[in-house]
């Protein structure tokens, strides 16, 4: 057998390890950082965390003094074998869990987390999967978190797959990972970044703020003829609108993977 096959077998082995077994863990908040006026980035140290693939999520469980428990799912912004796990949490006005995570949590606090979870909405480098089709990422608001994890993993692996990220966001102040995304767009792994502002565009923008249209989507995504793999994450309404448009534009529904986080 050639060296190529041996390398392929090794790559397959690492792909299997890319989605480790989930479990409950105690996480210690290592650092918090104001991500946007409405969101906080949380860096967690999780003893026993088995690593995670780019795009996976975890569940956070909070327990009140009277025993009442609330569990919510959050996408993971980091990937790889590290036990340092990064989240970016958007505050929901009537939320039971997110206001605590965004406004109250401090370094040293402890949380219960369950993960890593989900092997559907994940991306791994072409060296592991052998899939060299281009990748289109489409984010609505805080739905950018798992897609940022994919773009970050893509740059970290210096993966040659063409990536394009279309990010729909309210205002320039609401952009998550703003500096990091700018740096990823300059990295050697190919990433093209397109931002659509729905409420307020930056000064000097050529396109006024407004909801994304079918025409704007068509202009900013890899054409269906190039057979991209597409990942869409955002509110349920955003994801279903975009997914319907993509299928209407000729994208194969099986190549479109979606993750809906619910309302607003």
């Amino acid at each position, binding site marked *: 057998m050639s060296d190529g096959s041996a390398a392929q*077998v090794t790559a397959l082995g690492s792909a*299997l390890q890319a989605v480790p077994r989930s479990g409950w863990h105690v996480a210690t908040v290592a650092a918090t950082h104001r991500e946007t006026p409405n969101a906080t980035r949380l860096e967690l140290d999780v003893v026993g965390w088995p690593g995670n693939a780019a795009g996976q999520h975890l569940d956070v469980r909070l327990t009140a003094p009277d025993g009442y428990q609330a569990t919510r799912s959050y996408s993971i912004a980091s990937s790889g074998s590290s036990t340092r796990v990064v989240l970016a949490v958007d505050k929901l006005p009537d939320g039971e869990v997110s206001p605590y995570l965004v406004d109250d949590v401090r370094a040293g606090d402890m949380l219960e987390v369950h993960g890593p979870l*989900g092997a559907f909405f994940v991306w791994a480098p072409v060296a592991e999967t052998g899939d060299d089709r281009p990748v289109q990422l489409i984010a609505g608001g805080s739905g950018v978190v798992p897609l940022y994890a994919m773009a970050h993993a893509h740059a970290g692996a210096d993966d040659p797959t063409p990536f394009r990220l279309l990010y729909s966001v309210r205002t320039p102040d609401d952009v998550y990972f703003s500096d990091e995304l700018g740096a990823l767009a300059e990295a050697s792994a190919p990433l093209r970044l397109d931002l659509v502002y729905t409420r307020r565009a930056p000064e000097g923008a050529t396109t006024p703020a407004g909801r994304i249209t079918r025409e704007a989507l068509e202009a900013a995504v890899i054409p269906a003829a190039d057979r991209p793999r597409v990942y869409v994450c955002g509110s*349920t309404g955003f994801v279903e609108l975009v997914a319907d448009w993509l299928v209407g534009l000729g994208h194969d529904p099986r190549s479109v993977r979606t993750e*809906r986080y619910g*309302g607003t």
Partner: protein
Amino acid sequence: MEHVDGNALAGPLAEFFTFDVTTATGRCVGCGSIAELARAMVYRSGAGTVVRCGTCDNVLATIVESDDRAWIGFRGMSAIEVRRAPVVEERPA
């Protein structure tokens, strides 16, 4: 009630199944379509969780949990395909 999708079942069902259910594929008895459970629609309330086919809206499964047990029904799925982890053979170089 705003629904989510089958990705959200990964955590709740990891308590009971040893494989990732979201990548398992199921056949809908309503329309016959076969899709990963991640592509299903998920409606949650205090009473429990209803999983509906992403194609025809037929009820695929229901999940009701209490403190010490869970009731998981697959009333609308005729088969679930679960992938085994492939055996990685050692090959001589």
